[in-house]
């Protein structure tokens, strides 16, 4: 296997060389604890402060409104639990297509006595703001809706939902892990109070993420210990990670627009190419309101995992929309919520493009998908699935 094509950027990305260069001194040269008052600690603190300022500048918010966490999952946990626990009881609204970091957190809150409404989505995977409005109750204490879905790439009408929340002074959390640093994001215009974002989806390191918390938003911490992060998240700061995240955001601010355009064109090329060659294939998600680099293909009557395996053997990395664990195949909860029929949902394959993706890569993927699907369908019982 010589050729290697990585089309799984929604899962993770390689660290950008500029980011890596910025991080390196923070392992063995600048290593003090940012909380220490001596010179070693002060140097480290400068690194944390600079990163916080870079992120705040990118989001056009105040540095005091940024909290660092260990990953998107922790950010979502802190965002949702932090808002709920600050009120102690009540009702939350979220969507049925959220990441499990939000969905399972909501389920835990339900077990603790909170009420949760999971609003559905349309066939494009989009939440209908009116449905959120209908779900509102006098005791609604928080709304949490993702900015873009990681599987199908559909962008949610965050601005409209934000307005509903704002009118009733309900705090609004947005999981923006898939959009932060990829497309413009204005927390004020969209009415967002709490925002989750992550480093490794935008060419930063793994194990570092953050939360924007609008000043005045009532939150309680879920992790207890020292006085770090203005008592919102205890634990010694991940210094190299934070420095890397800050640099990654700075690089994205510079490159984001041009890259969104380039990657969007490659995504279109991929879809057009696959559609022209492979019968019975669909693009899931919204036709226009979508992440630039995500193409979620639904290949009828073929199982996702066999396509992923076939592509893997050709050096191509994509992800399966249905997960098989110990012989049980579950189609993705997102596709189920969108009402995608089972014979299509079982053959969901997500391609997510990024910085390194070239037109040659895309052409190679089109050709490989065609070959593999053709071969898999050859061995297929008529009307199976």
């Amino acid at each position, binding site marked *: 296997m010589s050729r290697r094509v990585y089309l799984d950027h929604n899962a993770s990305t390689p660290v950008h060389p500029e980011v890596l260069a910025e991080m390196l001194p923070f392992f063995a040269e600048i290593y003090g604890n940012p909380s220490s008052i001596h010179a070693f600690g002060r140097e480290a603190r400068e690194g944390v402060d600079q990163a916080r300022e870079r992120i705040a500048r990118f989001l056009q918010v105040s540095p005091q409104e940024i909290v660092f966490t260990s990953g998107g999952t922790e950010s979502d946990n802190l965002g949702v639990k932090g808002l709920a626990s600050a009120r102690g009881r009540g009702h939350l609204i979220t969507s049925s297509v959220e990441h499990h970091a939000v969905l399972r957190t909501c389920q835990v809150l339900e077990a603790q006595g909170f009420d949760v409404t999971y609003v559905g989505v349309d066939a494009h995977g989009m939440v209908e703001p009116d449905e959120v409005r209908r779900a509102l109750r006098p005791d609604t204490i928080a709304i949490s809706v993702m900015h873009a879905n990681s599987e199908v790439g559909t962008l949610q009408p965050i601005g409209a939902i934000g307005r509903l929340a704002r009118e009733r002074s309900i705090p609004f959390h947005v999981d923006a892990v898939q959009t932060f640093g990829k497309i413009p994001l204005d927390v004020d215009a969209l009415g967002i109070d709490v925002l989750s974002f992550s480093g490794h989806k935008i060419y930063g390191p793994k194990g570092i993420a953050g939360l924007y918390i609008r000043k005045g938003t009532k939150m309680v911490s879920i992790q207890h210990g020292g006085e770090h992060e203005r008592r919102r998240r205890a634990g010694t700061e991940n210094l190299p990670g934070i420095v890397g995240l800050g640099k990654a955001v700075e690089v994205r601010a510079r490159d984001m627009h041009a890259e969104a355009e380039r990657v969007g064109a490659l995504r279109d090329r991929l879809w057009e190419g696959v559609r022209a060659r492979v019968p019975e294939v669909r693009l899931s998600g919204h036709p226009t309101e979508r992440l630039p680099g995500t193409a979620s293909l639904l290949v009828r009557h073929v199982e996702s*995992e*066999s396509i992923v395996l*076939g592509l893997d053997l050709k050096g191509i990395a994509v992800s399966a929309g249905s997960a098989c664990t110990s012989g*049980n*195949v579950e189609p993705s909860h997102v596709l189920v919520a969108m009402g995608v029929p089972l014979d299509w949902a079982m053959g969901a394959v997500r391609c997510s493009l990024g910085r390194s993706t070239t037109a040659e890569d895309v052409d190679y993927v089109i050709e490989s998908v065609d070959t593999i699907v053709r071969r898999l369908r050859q*061995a*297929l*019982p008529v009307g*199976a699935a």
Partner: protein
Amino acid sequence: MRYSPTLVDHFLNPRNAGMMREPDGTGESEYAGCGDLARFFLRVRYGRAVEVRFQTYGCGPTIAAASVASELGRGRTVDDLSRLTSGDVEEALEGLPEDRKHAADVAAGALRAAAHDWLSRRR
């Protein structure tokens, strides 16, 4: 790679894939857990499977298991095939990961069913 080279080879180049017109015996097996299924067709002469073909829907290991089972079956007596085990298929694949054992069950089950179909038609 968590799969053996033999498994990968059968997945990439399935032998005897496709349906058969007017087979002497057919059989199916489905694994309810994930909906993987296989269907086998036999052409029988003098009690032996002279041609074995299959169709399958499932993950890579299931496709490979059906392919390898079709090779195991050809030339054997149908009596033999009616006793084919998952272990025989797995051995021919040079092993399966714990969470993909169903692949051999589906393939062996479908091939045994095809053998029983021929045996019952003969009676």
